[in-house]
C-alpha cells in the first residue's frame, strides 16, 4: 500500500487487490452495522416515517446495546440519560446518515480499477469513515483506554488467531488513516502562515 499526495490537493492510493478487499470488507461491515440496527435501512422507511423522524416525531429511538454501535452513536450527556434519549430521538437518523454517506463515498472510490484517486471531499469522507471502522474494530478488541491498547500489543504474540487478525487489520487501517490525515492536514493552513 502506498498513499501519496497527488496534484491539486488529491491523494493517491496504490493498493493491491487484497488491500482493496480489506477496505471494502470493513467499510461494508460498518455500513451494515449502522444501517440495519433496527432491521431495515433508513431508506426503507416510508416517506411519512422519514418525515416524522426528521421533525423529531419518530417516537423513541433505542439506545444501542452493541458497544461498538454505541461508540459510533454516543450519548450527548452520559450523566443525563433523559436528555440523551431526547437528543438521540432528534439526531439519530442524521448521524447515521452522515456516517453512511462517508462509507458509501469510500466504497464507491474503491470500485475504480487500479489506482484510487481522492479529491478533497473524498479524502475527508475516507478519513472519517476510517475513524468509524477503527472505532468498531477497537470496540471488538475491547479497547477502551490507552492502557488497553498497550496491554494488547504486549500480549500480541499470545493472541488467538482471530484476534491477531483483527489487530493486523486495525494496524493497517491506522497506518492508512495516519497517511491520509497527514496529507489533508498539510493541505489546510500551512503552519508558517499561522497567526501568533
Amino acid at each position: 500500500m502506498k498513499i501519496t499526495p497527488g496534484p491539486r490537493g488529491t491523494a493517491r492510493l496504490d493498493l493491491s487487490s487484497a488491500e482493496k478487499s480489506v477496505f471494502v470488507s470493513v467499510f461494508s461491515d460498518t455500513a451494515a452495522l449502522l444501517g440495519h440496527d433496527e432491521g431495515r435501512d433508513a431508506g426503507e422507511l416510508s416517506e411519512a416515517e422519514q418525515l416524522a423522524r426528521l421533525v423529531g416525531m419518530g417516537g423513541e429511538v433505542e439506545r444501542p446495546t452493541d458497544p461498538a454501535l454505541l461508540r459510533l452513536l454516543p450519548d450527548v450527556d452520559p450523566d443525563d440519560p433523559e436528555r440523551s434519549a431526547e437528543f438521540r430521538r432528534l439526531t439519530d437518523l442524521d448521524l447515521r446518515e452522515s456516517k453512511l454517506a462517508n462509507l458509501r463515498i469510500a466504497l464507491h472510490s474503491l470500485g475504480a480499477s487500479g489506482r484510487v484517486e481522492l479529491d478533497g471531499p473524498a479524502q475527508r469522507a475516507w478519513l472519517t469513515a476510517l475513524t468509524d471502522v477503527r472505532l468498531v474494530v477497537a470496540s471488538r478488541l475491547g479497547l477502551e483506554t490507552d492502557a488497553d491498547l498497550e496491554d494488547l500489543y504486549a500480549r500480541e504474540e499470545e493472541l488467538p488467531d482471530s484476534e491477531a487478525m483483527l489487530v493486523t487489520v486495525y494496524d493497517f487501517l491506522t497506518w492508512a488513516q495516519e497517511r491520509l490525515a497527514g496529507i489533508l492536514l498539510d493541505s489546510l493552513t500551512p503552519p508558517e502562515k499561522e497567526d501568533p
Partner: protein
Amino acid sequence: MTIVFNDPVNLMSYVTYVFQSYFGYSRLKSEKLMYEVHEDGRSVVATGSREQMERDTAAMHGFGLWAACRRADQGDS
C-alpha cells in the same frame, strides 16, 4: 460547553484536523486542544448556547470523536 474526551483510537493528526476544519481554529489552537485531550484526558473545545453546544457535540460524534455536552456549572469532569 462541548467537551472532547481522550480515547485510544483517534489519532492526534486527525483530532487536530477536526478542530481546525470544523471550528475554524488555527493550527496552533487546534494542536493545543488536541494535546489537552491526549494528555489531560479531556478538553473543553467550545462554549456557548445550549443549542450551539448540542450542534457541536453532534458534529464531533459525526467525526467519531468521543464528545459530550455539559452545562458550564456541571464542570468538565
